[in-house]
């Protein structure tokens, strides 16, 4: 009987570790954002964290519950509010998912999960002051819609991290993902990375490349 208690404690420690190392990634899911999604995955993995996204959520489950669980399981979150324009499909609408998930995160941080840390990223400087003025006083990270910009801003965001990869190392991880993505897509029968299976495999590829390239 006494032997069962330590095993339970070890399981809890393992859970805590997983929670400590995961970053919830709240980004637009469209073809124009593919490069930046890969850049985020490469950068997050380079810093020794595991990316999580709502892409993982299987259809059929109650989506809102799973989103809340995902945010709650993550220690950090990155919210990219670049996509504020109307989409092309009729009826043309802006995408509300990203600001909605940011709102959920802020609510969780203020209530049940005070040690959760979040940041906001944008492409255009000062646009967020107009699109989401409730965030006044919170400066976003401006990546300018470029891969190099994402690497630079992730370096600023994770400046206190133990692992400090160079932009060259993040670019190398990005190159690994770019090279491997056709085979991952083909195997999954998918056309873009905005797919549960493809996203998960890209994260594993990025984590492998990070651990091979960055020796800490």
């Amino acid at each position, binding site marked *: 009987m006494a032997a069962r208690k330590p095993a339970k404690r070890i399981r809890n420690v393992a859970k805590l570790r997983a929670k400590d190392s995961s970053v919830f990634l709240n980004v637009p899911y469209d073809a124009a954002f593919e490069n930046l999604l890969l850049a985020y995955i490469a950068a997050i993995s380079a810093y020794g964290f595991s990316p999580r996204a709502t892409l993982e959520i299987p259809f059929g489950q109650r989506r809102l519950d799973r989103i809340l669980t995902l945010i709650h399981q993550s220690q950090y979150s990155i919210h990219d509010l670049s996509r504020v324009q109307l989409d092309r499909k009729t009826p043309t609408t802006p995408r509300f998912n990203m600001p909605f998930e940011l709102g959920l995160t802020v609510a969780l941080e203020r209530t049940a999960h005070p040690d959760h840390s979040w940041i906001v990223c944008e492409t255009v400087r000062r646009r967020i002051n107009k699109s989401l003025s409730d965030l006044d006083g*919170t400066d976003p990270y401006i990546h300018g819609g470029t891969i190099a910009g994402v690497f630079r801003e992730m370096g600023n965001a994770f400046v206190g991290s133990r692992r400090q990869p160079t932009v060259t190392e993040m670019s*190398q991880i990005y190159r*690994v993902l770019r090279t491997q993505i056709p085979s991952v897509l083909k195997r999954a029968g998918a056309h873009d990375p905005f797919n549960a299976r493809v996203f998960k495999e890209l994260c594993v590829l990025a984590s492998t490349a990070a651990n091979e390239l960055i020796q800490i």
Partner: protein
Amino acid sequence: MAHPIRVDNSRPATVRDTARLLGVSKSRTDELIRAVRRMIHKDDRTGEFVIRTKNSARNGSTKARKTNSKRRKASR
């Protein structure tokens, strides 16, 4: 200036941590690890890591540059 993320400096996630967290099977993780390891090489001279893509898949031992000029060909 944007505030940085408060990082608690726990150990970096391993590949197995990430795979377990995301629910990628062990066999598929092993395949992905092999695929990445095939691409990453350490340059013996500089000590830096080099990523080999399919387009640049020349073997290290074979020639890296094509001989272009006739004069250079003749001088060999």
